[in-house]
């Protein structure tokens, strides 16, 4: 909603209020100032009058003008097609610096002296609203020739754009905002005396009949006039440009101006549209159409109340009879109807859905005042109105209610004054309680809280002292808090292990997920209105997002990509669960002296170690993934305490190629299953431990997990740990390999002797031989 300070000043006296104060106040009462543009016409640009105007002898398009600039008469050459004698114009005199930077100097144009420039709107920094030079008139107020434009309110104006909240339809007009400012500044609005009906004019009753079938909850008011010689004055043209509006016909432009000013919806109809063949009287029918909308019609529909006006009913002529209509429909009624049956809405729907000004008589009177001021039209006396009466909503509120909600002591006098200034009817209030009559234009005020909000915003929220809240201690550390904490701890661990936390949208591309063999959301549970095709479903894995990110980073030149994400995924039933995924791609470490600038690529062992550094110890078992992202022979399931909690694998070389990335490893883990509990200390032995290394010959394709299982089943309690330390093969071994294992033995009761160790190791060797046919090297 765009307003100008001079325009507001026509409704409320702002002469002693700075623009800074005005903006601060608007913000403080809840009318947010989005932008402020100050019109600053430079010095030495003055009012002038063209006394004479002759064609330039040597140039078709130029005119030689004698311009009265008060103190003297100057000769100015002007190229505009609309310059003529008798015009009041804007003259940039010698020495003026235009907004464009141009400095006005005496020049010769085609050999003729010119001392100054007659200006167009854009030349002095105004919006471009008329072709050629500006033609001033009395609408800008009185002015003296030779005086600087800056001294006139219209030319030193401020254009303020206000962002209104959806509930403040009453502020969609200059009048409405002035009304709010009246409460904020505690000063009355200016008295707008409106012309009483002149009984000498012909009456409307002979020209118009309005029928309505039934009560349709709309308010209408009609006037009829004979339009003649309408000329839009300077100020209306300027202001329409300042609010960014444009209309094809002058009458529509003037009515738009009136609507912006008063808030009342005004329409001009072609009078003949409502006259049947050979009839002189216009017959307007207010009826309901098949969708339940109230319509204005004769044989055809002229407009749908609150929605739009049909083109066929518009006024396309400059002279003739016009039917003028002011209308109002309660905003919740029209919004509800439009939500059910989505009609194409006209430009006024923005206003009607938020609640336009219900005081139709004053709006129409404002419009007629302007028409009569700027044309030689004649207005028929009387008006015809349709609509039921309206009883103000009554809301009771006590001082205690106000004080408790706001948290301060607001005096009764202040409360009463604020509400009265806002236009509320306080006549029913008593000493102890306020019974507030809420006018129709504040349809957003329905209950006590709404009244209290009015009070607090006019008092000013910043003027309320803050108060700490007193409450009873209570343990607030619950499940969700601990879940959040666990997440935080593992994210920190991943970061300290060198991974960067990545966040992706919870959306993914269904096509891609399916391509790689991931389940996708069941069709009947899918998104109805995705925003783009690449985000047309919910993700069922974190891995595709991480691969995309890896690709992006490699393109940016990163030789090593280490990313992690802890985020939600969905299963085919759209059930949400939390996963943690890590991706490691490219170089194992940064280039450095140690690796002579040629670090190796990350490998399975390095990646697994990193993952373990983050989530703790785990076993890896060979697996085949259900999706096709993994290298067939380097895929594992992650097992903790006998339970599968995730998977870890090298990415399939074809996928690496598709994403244009180097050797890449990924893991994805069920976050809930990552162990995170208090540990209990175990008794440790104070006796020395012993190592034994054994090298066993195993078939090439035998998995360590098989050997591990046998050893675990046959180990004595003195075996506290064992792990592989070397794997060796050569031609002599043929299709077998030599696997060296280190065994750590320790007893709780004594230092183990050679015999004890030997018997433990023998038991293991026997088992390996018997169950797997494996022997020492």
């Amino acid at each position: 909603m765009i307003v100008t300070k001079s325009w507001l000043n026509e409704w409320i006296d702002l002469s002693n209020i700075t623009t800074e104060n005005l903006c601060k106040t608007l913000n403080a009462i809840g009318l947010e100032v989005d932008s402020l543009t100050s019109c600053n016409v430079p010095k030495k640009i003055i009012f002038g009058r063209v006394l004479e105007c002759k064609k330039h002898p040597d140039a078709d398009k130029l005119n030689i003008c004698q311009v009265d600039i008060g103190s003297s008469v100057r000769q100015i050459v002007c190229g505009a097609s609309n310059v003529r004698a008798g015009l009041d114009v804007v003259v940039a005199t010698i020495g003026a610096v235009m907004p464009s930077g141009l400095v006005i100097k005496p020049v010769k144009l085609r050999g003729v002296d010119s001392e100054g420039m007659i200006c167009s709107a854009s030349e002095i920094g105004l919006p471009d609203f008329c072709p050629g030079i500006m033609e001033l008139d009395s609408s800008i107020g009185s002015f003296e020739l030779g005086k600087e434009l800056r001294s006139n309110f219209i030319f030193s104006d401020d254009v303020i754009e206000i962002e209104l909240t959806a509930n403040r339809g009453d502020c969609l007009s200059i009048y409405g905002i002035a009304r709010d400012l009246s409460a904020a500044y505690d000063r009355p609005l200016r008295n707008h005396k409106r012309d009483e009906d002149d009984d000498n004019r012909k009456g409307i009753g002979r020209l118009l009949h309005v029928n309505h079938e039934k009560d349709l909850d709309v308010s209408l008011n009609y006037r009829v006039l004979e339009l003649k010689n309408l000329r839009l004055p300077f100020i209306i043209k300027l202001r329409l440009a300042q609010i960014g509006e444009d209309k094809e016909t002058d009458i529509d432009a003037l009515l738009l101006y009136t609507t912006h000013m008063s808030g009342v919806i005004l329409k001009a109809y072609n009078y003949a549209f409502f006259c049947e063949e050979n009839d002189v009287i216009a017959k307007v029918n207010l009826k309901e159409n098949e969708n339940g909308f109230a319509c204005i019609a004769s044989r055809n529909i002229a407009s749908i109340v609150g929605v739009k006006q049909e083109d066929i009913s518009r006024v396309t002529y400059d002279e003739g009879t016009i039917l003028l209509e002011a209308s109002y429909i309660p905003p919740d009624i029209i919004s509800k109807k439009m939500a059910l049956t989505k009609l194409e809405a006209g430009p006024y729907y923005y206003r009607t859905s938020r609640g336009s000004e219900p005081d139709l008589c004053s709006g129409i009177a404002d419009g007629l005042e302007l028409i009569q001021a700027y044309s030689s039209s004649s207005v028929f006396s009387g008006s015809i109105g349709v609509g039921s009466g309206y009883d103000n909503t009554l809301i009771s509120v006590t001082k205690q209610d106000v004080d408790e909600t706001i948290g301060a002591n607001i005096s009764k006098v202040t409360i009463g004054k604020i509400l009265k200034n806002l236009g509320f009817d306080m006549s029913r209030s008593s000493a102890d309680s306020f019974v507030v009559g809420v006018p129709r234009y504040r349809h957003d005020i329905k209950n006590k809280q709404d009244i209290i909000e009015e009070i607090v915003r006019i008092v000013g929220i910043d003027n309320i002292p803050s108060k700490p809240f007193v409450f009873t201690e209570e343990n607030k550390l619950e499940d969700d808090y601990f879940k959040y904490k666990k997440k935080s701890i593992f994210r920190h661990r991943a970061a300290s292990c060198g991974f960067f936390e990545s966040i992706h949208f919870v959306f993914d591309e269904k096509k891609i997920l399916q391509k790689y063999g991931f389940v996708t959301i069941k069709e009947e549970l899918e998104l109805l209105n995705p925003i783009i095709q690449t985000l047309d479903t919910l993700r069922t894995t974190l891995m595709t997002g991480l691969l995309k990110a890896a690709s992006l980073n490699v393109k940016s030149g990163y030789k090593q990509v280490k990313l992690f994400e802890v985020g939600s995924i969905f299963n085919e039933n759209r059930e949400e669960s939390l996963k943690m995924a890590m991706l490691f791609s490219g170089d194992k470490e940064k280039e450095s002296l140690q690796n002579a600038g040629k670090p190796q690529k990350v490998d399975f062992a390095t990646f697994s170690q990193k993952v373990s550094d983050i989530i703790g110890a785990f076993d890896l078992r060979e697996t085949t993934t259900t999706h096709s992202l993994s290298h067939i022979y380097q895929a594992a399931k992650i097992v903790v305490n006998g339970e599968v909690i995730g998977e870890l694998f090298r990415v399939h070389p074809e996928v690496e190629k598709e994403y244009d990335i180097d050797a890449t490893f990924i893991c994805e883990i069920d976050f809930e299953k990552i162990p995170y509990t208090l540990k209990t200390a175990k008794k440790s032995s104070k006796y020395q431990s012993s190592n034994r290394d054994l090298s066993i010959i195993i078939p090439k394709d035998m998995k360590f997990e098989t050997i591990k299982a046998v050893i675990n089943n046959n180990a004595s309690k003195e075996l506290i740990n064992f792990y592989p330390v070397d794997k060796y093969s050569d031609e002599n071994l043929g299709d077998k390999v030599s696997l060296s294992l280190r065994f750590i033995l320790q007893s709780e009761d004594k230092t183990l002797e050679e015999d004890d160790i030997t018997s433990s190791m023998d038991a293991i060797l026997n088992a390996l031989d018997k169950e797997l046919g494996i022997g020492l090297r």
Partner: protein
Amino acid sequence: MVTLLKEWYEKIKEAQSVDSLEEIRISVFGKKGVLAAEFAKMRIYTTDEEKAKIAKELNEHKSALMNEFTIRKITLQTLELQEAMKAEAIDVSLYSTSSQVGALHPVMETMDRIVEYFSSMNFAVKTGNMVEDDFNNFEALNLPKYHPARDMQDTFYFKDELLLRTHTSPVQIRTMMNTQPPIRMIAPGAVFRRDYDLTHTPMFHQVEGLLVDEAGKVSFANLKYILEDFLKYMFGDIQVRFRPSFFPFTEPSAEVDISCVFCKAKGCRVCSKTGWLEVLGCGIVDPNVFEAVKYKNVSGYAFGLGVERFAMLIHQIGDLRSLFEGDIKLLEQFQ
């Protein structure tokens, strides 16, 4: 004897290495060494007196030589250690290194700090599902189906009429449906709006807060207090300004601005020359919301903030969309 031993004193003092000193030790103190030989020569002396005299002399020499030997050995060992260390000298400046540590995402880390503040202020942390229904996301929050305020939100719907939550308010509704007041909680999490341009992403993060207590106890002044304290905690020394506004679920409502952190409220591109940055929405909970969750005789306040907004202001990140690309160029700046 003295002349012979004197030679060894010199040799000890002039030994050049621990190894050659060891050789001297063997020569002097060993079983077949000089001192042993001298002690053996004592046989030729017959009287005990004479023997005692020689023995005493020899022992004195032995002690003195031992002393010299020890001194020289320590000296040589020290020198040799010095040499060894020098040989291990490295140019430390070659090893100035950039960190290989990773980093937490600035948005998630900002959320952590916000959660940390409120949990220290005794607010419970509650989370909930991203997939929600119309009642918990809209209706219970005083947004009936045809309300124009629904214009403000473009929503992702599923074919079975559920939706992706547009704010974390559903978590608060569900909490109120499942517990009795007083309530003191925050709900952090991902939320979804159907918008994707320079300043909007289809997913972003919010933290919403809710306080509910007996009727008449919770006021706007209380709301001001906690939010002013919170904003100063997050942004440091800034001014806070409240502007009346409109939300369907609170009445009175306000939007909260902080003085622009970039230009110190002088006016710049980031704050559109106003000197203020909008960071929060808040208000007194609308009675219709309490009605929907069947709470009676209560009062409460609620507030909500966008985590990305906070992260971008605090860390001066210019492009919202860059936060969701896993771009290390951005992430590594938060090591």
